[in-house]
């Protein structure tokens, strides 16, 4: 008899424990996630008027492999940008019936893309046995700046700037000859 009571009591305790577990698990699942990050609302820092003609758009994904001392960082970075011309400094000269336009120098601007997953750290490590593998913000920024400088040089090397200049010259000539009906000659600065 006593044995039966004990057995039922044990079963009851087990059932109660299972029920409590299920309730706790469900509460845990529905509870708000613990987030240690607080985001402030975005604010407008500057609005700038400009007149820039972009004739080539670039999007590229490149690996960032950088080292500082014995620390190494490997990441994947997506960059986006364009080759553009500041038309505010466009110079016009009239030679008889012809309009001569001097196109300003090209500007290559690459930035990190705003598409999701544009910067992904793959690995960080230190060759020294007990050295810290963490990069400070300044160190990481320096590596990224160098990567972008190198990517911008690559844009020139690949000839995209020359192509952009040709397209810009055609675009400006079309626009001006269309509006004035006069022959337009475009001279572009290197």
């Amino acid at each position: 008899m006593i044995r039966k009571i004990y057995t039922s009591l044990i079963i009851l305790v087990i059932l109660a424990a299972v029920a409590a577990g299920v309730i706790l698990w469900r509460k845990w699942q529905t509870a708000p996630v613990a987030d240690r990050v607080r985001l402030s609302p975005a604010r407008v820092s500057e609005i700038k008027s400009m007149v820039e003609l972009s004739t080539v758009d670039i999007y590229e994904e490149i690996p960032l492999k950088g080292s500082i001392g014995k620390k190494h960082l490997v990441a994947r970075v997506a960059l986006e940008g364009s080759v553009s011309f500041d038309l505010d400094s466009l110079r016009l000269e009239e030679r008889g019936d012809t309009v001569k336009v001097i196109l300003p120098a090209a500007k290559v601007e690459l930035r990190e893309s705003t598409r999701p997953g544009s910067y992904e750290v793959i690995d960080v490590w230190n060759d020294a046995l007990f050295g810290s593998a963490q990069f400070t913000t300044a160190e990481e920024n320096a590596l990224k700046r160098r990567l972008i400088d190198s990517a911008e040089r690559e844009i020139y090397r690949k000839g995209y700037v020359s192509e952009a200049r040709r397209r810009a010259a055609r675009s400006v000539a079309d626009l001006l000859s269309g509006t004035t009906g006069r022959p337009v000659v475009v001279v572009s600065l290197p």
Partner: protein
Amino acid sequence: MRLTFRLHLLAAAAALLALASCVSPETVQESDSEIMLRRVKAVNRLTLAQMRVTKMATVGDLPLDSARGMRQTVAALADALKIGDRKAAYSYDTYLTAYVDLSEIGKEDLTVNDLVKRVTIRLPEPEVAFAGRDAEIREDHYRVTGLRSDIGPAERAALKEKMNAALRAEVEESEEFRRPLLENARRRGEAFFTELLGDLGYTVTVAWGKKEDAEKKDDVLLSPPPDMIDEWGVDER
């Protein structure tokens, strides 16, 4: 004797390697051959305004008094037991541009009267687009003490991803960003064409929107409201 010579040779090689590693403490591999993806697209876009938007985020322990629900309470308790503090604030800038697509301008959008030197140009409505963000992140505050772990590149990358998603949602939902940018773009566009062609002796009128759109608007204004159609009758001839 030979063994000593080899040992010297090895020591010299090790010293050379060590020297080589000291020459450039900060290096980034030029990775042209390793480019994963590159897309180059020809465009014909006139950017008329740019907006710099700043987003800020803080990283810190969860205070016990503001914890809601089980998960947050457990996390806050765990944070309270840790030795030291872990607080940081980061920010970075994202760029938005307003532009007109010049390839949408056709011959019908330009009207030139050479007799009175008057030009009317119809520009497509300016559009707003994201133009990238700063690759660098600003560390506005950093205080990690005691036995707490440093904030490293992977955590900063995840934080930037979170900030980016929130910022994109804010820009898409709120007119606060689009409206001033578009107003600036329209003003600058009008000023640019007026000055450019003004230098050649032309008087310029700038209109916005596609001609068909403008005509459609006129049609809507001229056509009777739907509930009046019956009254006006339908010509069945």
